[in-house]
């Protein structure tokens, strides 16, 4: 009972934060999230076989979750909103609170009951619950007037990249600090072939494969010099590549190449320089027509589809011969080589496959914002991705997804929303000196930095540790030698 309540504080905290920061009808979403997280986390800590007790369990965790969520809703809509000048709407608050409680109870109970099923059916049941939520989300968003969709799509793009980075860092144990370079390469490859830039206006559906292939080839090219390196030197070399690629992209806008005195081509604009490439073709489907920037729903389902296919492939790879070879490589390269694993090929494949997913993400992102600029792929993107992977737990896909969601939502939704609220509170309180602090962009780096340091110092295995003992990062920090 004690663990049940303690564990259900995790989801409750999420519900509280979302309700407090977002305001309006977002409280309903907060209840949904609280119920989902608690329904996942609590049965994991306290498994029950009996349906009736599972319902009780679901109700308990839903109670904790909804109490805190309602607290958040009330605090935001009744206390903060009047201060910052939003009129108090009691009926709206009541609707949000009731909706939050209903959804929270429904989801927690269903999840708790599903978790009592035997493993095979449990997996299908969970997939159905999560699937229903994911598929209905766009309409929920529209119905509740949340306008989160334009942030959810980039979140999914970055999650896809985090999954790709997890292959390189988590599975194969190669610390890659320049992973954003492959995102840039994929995005530019797709942009070059599917925009008027070179007059090649290929369809998005072809360009995305071009992007994946080019990114994979660059993964091989940039990975091959790093083969004899390990550990920190490998990290620095990948960081170097990660910085060279954006510099090159920025400056390759008038390329002239001559073979001795015979000019091969003169003043070719390869990448558009600082102006970037713009516009990029959008995908087109028979019934929907061309995806429009004003309607995010087709984009949402497109990236969701790419994500699901990627997750399927990655989980199959994980358990394949190659996946086991990566694990062996990560644990001990010499021993892996002695066991007959071709360490060269296995490493290169990790780089190439990891880069492929980044290339896919880049192609999608370029088409989505219909433009691409060299400045969007710097070191902070690589570190943010690393943050997502490390927060969730290296080498564990569900951990990486959880960590990615936390970091991404904190970066894109919570911090900006909190910033506006705090801004308004400061203005209301009449304090002039703090007025121009932007609480979103001025604290982003601190968020990433502190996440990395605290995770390393306190919980190097991540929020959801992977099952195998990952030796890339030590399992327990307490085993220190003599320091």
């Amino acid at each position, binding site marked *: 009972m004690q663990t049940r309540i303690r564990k259900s504080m995790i989801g409750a905290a999420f519900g509280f934060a979302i309700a407090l920061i977002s305001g309006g009808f977002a409280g309903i979403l907060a209840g949904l999230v609280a119920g989902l997280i608690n329904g996942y986390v609590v049965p994991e800590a306290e498994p029950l076989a009996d349906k009736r007790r599972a319902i009780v369990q679901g109700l308990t965790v839903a109670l904790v979750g909804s109490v805190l969520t309602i607290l958040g809703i009330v605090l935001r809509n009744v206390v903060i909103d009047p201060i910052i000048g939003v009129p108090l709407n009691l009926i709206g608050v009541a609707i949000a609170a009731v909706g939050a409680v209903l959804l929270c109870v429904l989801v927690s109970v269903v999840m708790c009951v599903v978790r009592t099923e035997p493993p095979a059916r449990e997996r299908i049941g969970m997939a159905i619950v999560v699937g229903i939520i994911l598929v209905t989300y766009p309409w929920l968003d529209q119905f509740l007037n949340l306008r989160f969709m334009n942030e959810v799509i980039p979140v999914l793009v970055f999650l896809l990249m985090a999954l790709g980075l997890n292959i390189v860092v988590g599975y194969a144990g190669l610390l890659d600090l320049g992973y954003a370079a492959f995102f840039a390469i994929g995005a530019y490859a797709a942009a070059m072939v599917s925009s008027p830039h070179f007059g090649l206006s290929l369809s998005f559906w072809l360009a995305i494969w071009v992007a994946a292939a080019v990114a994979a080839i660059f993964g091989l090219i940039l990975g091959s010099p790093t083969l004899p390196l390990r*550990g920190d030197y490998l990290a620095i070399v990948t960081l170097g590549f990660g910085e*060279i690629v954006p510099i090159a992209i920025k400056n390759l806008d008038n390329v002239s190449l001559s073979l001795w005195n015979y000019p091969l081509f003169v003043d070719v604009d390869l990448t558009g320089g600082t102006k970037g490439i713009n516009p990029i073709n959008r995908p087109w489907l028979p019934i929907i027509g061309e995806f429009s920037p004003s309607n995010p729903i087709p984009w949402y389902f497109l990236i969701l589809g790419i994500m699901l296919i990627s997750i399927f492939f990655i989980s199959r790879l994980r358990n394949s011969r190659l996946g086991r070879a990566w694990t062996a490589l990560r644990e001990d390269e010499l021993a892996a080589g002695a066991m007959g694993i071709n360490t060269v090929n296995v490493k290169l494949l990790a780089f190439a496959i990891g880069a492929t997913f980044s290339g896919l993400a880049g192609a999608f992102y370029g088409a989505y914002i219909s433009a691409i600029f060299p400045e969007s792929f710097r070191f902070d993107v690589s570190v943010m991705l690393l943050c997502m992977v490390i927060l969730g737990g290296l080498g564990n896909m569900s951990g990486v997804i959880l960590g990615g969601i936390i970091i991404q939502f904190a970066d894109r939704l919570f911090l900006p929303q909190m910033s506006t609220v705090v801004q308004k509170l400061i203005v209301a309180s009449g304090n002039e000196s703090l007025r121009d602090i932007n609480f979103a962009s001025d604290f982003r780096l*601190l968020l990433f930095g502190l996440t990395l340091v605290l995770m390393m110092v306190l919980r190097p295995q991540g929020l959801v540790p992977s099952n195998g003992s990952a030796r890339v990062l*030590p399992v327990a920090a307490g085993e220190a030698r003599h*320091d």
Partner: protein
Amino acid sequence: MATSHPRVAQGVPWRSIGKILIVIFCVLFLTLPLIEMVKAMIADPQLLVRQLLIGLTNGAYIALIALGYTLVYGIVELINFAHGDLYMLGAFFSLTLVGVFSLTPETPWLIRGPLLVVVLLATMAFTATLNMLVDRWAYRRLRGIGSRMAALISAIGISFVFQNLGLLWGYLRFPFMNGVMGSNAVAPKSFPALFPNVNLLAGTGVRFGAKDLIVVGVSVVLLAALYVFVTRTRLGKAMRATAQDRDAAALMGIDVNRTISLAFILGGALAGASGMLVGLYNGTAVFDMGFTAGLRSFTAAVLGGIGNIVGAMLGGLLIGIISALSDQYISTKWTNAVVFGILVIILVYRPTGLLGDDTAQKA
């Protein structure tokens, strides 16, 4: 060196094919531009000397930062990623003090000189303390657990925390700071021109100002002091012993943790001095200047042979000169790429650097 075991032929020899392709590419496409560059250098020797002098000044401050990397790496094998950002914080701290003492170009030299020395010493003390505290909180407990990755990731995190501190520093507008931070927190901060801007080589067509002399002079004094400290004193001996073999040093009665702290203190002090010198020399400081400076200095440390003190000084000088030449003869836009390229090439083909011994990569 566990990594250099001979590779048994495994199918297609991709590595040798790759090497041959790289050589062919270089011969075909890079020879002519290189010849052109050398021609340009010979054609205008005055310009060349000017760039070399700029390189000397840049090299001096790069060497100061590079020493911090080398001292720490030599002892705990940690790439202290946050070191470049420590240098940035040094610049911000010194700018704050300049504001507090309300130093302006009009302040008479009798007051300005001693106060500048006070600012330098205070900045060094500040960055040294900060570096030591960070080591204690963020790196110490990650040592000796078999993986160097954890400490490196922690250092990357600290680097971002420092950058954010630098950003927030711009919001400090206490009345006693006399408005040195300007009105926009994120924008580059400007230093008052406190160093005299006279050309010592006037009339020769080459420029080497008094401020260049100050930067080079202070750097050389600090580097010499560090060299003497490490090679001639008991504490320096303890540092060298710890770098060679931490366990054996501990058995000989050396307090290893204090010695490691000492390395962080010395490195931090040099980074702070460098931050102040560069801030006053260039006249500006911005919160994200640590990343590039840090990577250039790390390249310098690796080029000289990481863990080697003289190597870091030599590497700093070389990187300063190379970037000055690249600024002039290639393009400023490509200088960072050139430096990163050098870093990659050295790490891949000669990880021991110019002066390093074979223990550089103990992996």
